[in-house]
């Protein structure tokens, strides 16, 4: 039987377009120190460090973990780097959780970051290769046709995407760490923004952010911190190739299998009933209805109806992305961890203005690459 694992400390930077006042080392340390303070621990209490970020090409800094050990108090300790594209922040937390649940370590610091201002990350995603059709599109251009396919399949009206864009930015107004604080956000503002990749408008896309996230995970006998622990009830990761004949890009099998696995571990048979709050990787507005279906919160084709009915709004029955989500802050490597971190904050009751009262069970999800890497965890206020 695996050891119980708990989140006992969380930390994050204020996510911004440019953090020119700090180096990458300074950025990750800021989040890590906050997580340690929240856990009421110091560097010496930590047994191992697990760090994640998106492709090295984003900052042109190859294997940055090699020089970040002192910044993260990892000198003389095990340190692991994780990389699974945009889902990396989630899978990094999973590796850290497994070091606890396997009984190997008692306290693990896990950190993820991106410093997008050091580079032009969008183009680093679509490297032209000899003898291959150039993508030259960035992430939005890659996902837009899948969104069109979803709209055609489900018959969803055009305004659903705009509703998600508004809803997540309204949530961000509650979160002091969110990058975007658009006080006047409304459907008209989204509709008036520039068309980037049909059907995605500028305000239906995530920003480029500098930022870091950190958590301290602990075994049951080492629980500490200023808030009650968030207990890990299930962890799962699934992968599939970017392209293969017959692949369902709209509703990827890896995502469905991943959620089935994590729900099985957490004893969830009806996600909409049993999950109080979810943080799901929605970098482009339409991925909310798409993931509602992929994650089994409704039947196929019905995801947009939940969004339209306000079910995922802050006062809905299944609030999604109470932090403001990826649509409001996107330090890519950290974005997955921020989803996992937000749900830990919710079940610990430390989310302040974006706290959902009485949240007991919560789902964090991250996806990456061409919707091909999925990582998820379910956390709860009660021991599993």
């Amino acid at each position: 039987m695996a050891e119980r694992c708990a989140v006992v400390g969380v930390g994050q930077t204020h996510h911004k377009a440019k953090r020119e006042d700090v180096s990458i080392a300074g950025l990750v340390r800021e989040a890590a120190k906050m997580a340690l303070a929240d856990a009421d621990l110091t560097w010496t209490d930590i047994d191992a460090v697990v760090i994640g970020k998106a492709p090295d090409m984003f900052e042109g800094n190859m294997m940055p973990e090699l020089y970040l050990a002192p910044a993260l108090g990892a000198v003389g300790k095990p340190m692991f780097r994780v990389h699974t594209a945009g889902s990396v922040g989630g899978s990094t937390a999973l590796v850290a959780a497994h070091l606890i649940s396997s009984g190997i370590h008692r306290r693990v610091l896990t950190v993820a970051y991106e410093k997008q201002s050091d580079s032009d990350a969008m183009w680093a995603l679509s490297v032209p290769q000899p003898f291959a059709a150039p993508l030259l599109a960035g992430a939005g251009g890659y996902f837009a046709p899948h969104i069109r396919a979803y709209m055609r399949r489900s018959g969803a009206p055009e305004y659903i995407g705009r509703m998600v864009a508004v809803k997540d930015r309204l949530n961000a107004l509650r979160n002091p760490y969110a990058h975007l604080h658009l006080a006047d956000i409304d459907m008209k503002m989204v509709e008036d923004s520039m068309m980037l990749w049909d059907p995605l408008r500028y305000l239906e896309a995530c920003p480029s952010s500098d930022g870091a996230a950190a958590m301290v995970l602990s075994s049951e006998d080492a629980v500490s911190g200023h808030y009650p622990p968030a207990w890990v009830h299930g962890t799962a990761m699934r992968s599939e190739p970017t392209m293969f004949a017959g692949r369902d890009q709209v509703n990827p099998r890896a995502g469905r299998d991943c959620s089935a696995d994590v729900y099985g571990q957490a004893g969830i048979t009806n996600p909409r009933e049993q999950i109080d709050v979810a943080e799901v990787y929605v970098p482009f507005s339409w991925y909310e209805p798409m993931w509602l279906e992929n994650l089994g919160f409704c039947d196929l084709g019905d995801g947009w109806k939940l969004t339209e009915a306000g079910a995922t709004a802050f006062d809905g029955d299944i609030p999604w992305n109470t932090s403001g989500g990826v649509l409001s802050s996107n330090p890519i490597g950290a974005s997955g961890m921020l989803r996992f971190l937000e749900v830990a904050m919710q079940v610990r009751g430390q989310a302040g203005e974006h706290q959902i009262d009485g949240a007991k069970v919560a789902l964090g999800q991250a996806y990456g690459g061409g919707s091909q890497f999925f990582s998820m965890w379910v956390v709860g206020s009660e021991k599993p």
Partner: protein
Amino acid sequence: MPESEALHASHRLEYPYSRSVGPVIGAFLTGLREGRLLGVRGAGGSVIVPPTEYDPTTGGDTGEMVEVGPGGVVESWAWVSHPLPKHPLPSPFAWALIRLDGADTALLHAVDSGGPDQLASGDRVTVRFRPAAERIGAMADIESFVPQGGAPR
């Protein structure tokens, strides 16, 4: 099967990057531009040059910036008989670990001693900066180190 020629294509990959270096490395690079050598006070009071943001042994915060040099001692060195275009000097030189006066760690840089028989570990050297107008806040603002006093052995 008939032999066919393998496909070839040139592929040049370039991205622009920038760096936010933070307060410690930033102060060091700014010092170079001003013609000054700066280290940082580490845990336990030692002076680390080039400075690090965090103590490399304890991971603790480093402290105040400390001016070091301009002279120092060669701890060890290796002679470069045939410099390549990207090397700091066009004529033969030594790569040397130099412990600057006031520092507890050594800095790697070039020493322009004239010949391998004119350099020994333990020798004193001093910094030779590029002219102020050419300095940009980078390690190459130091053209090289030279034997102290400039006299050959």
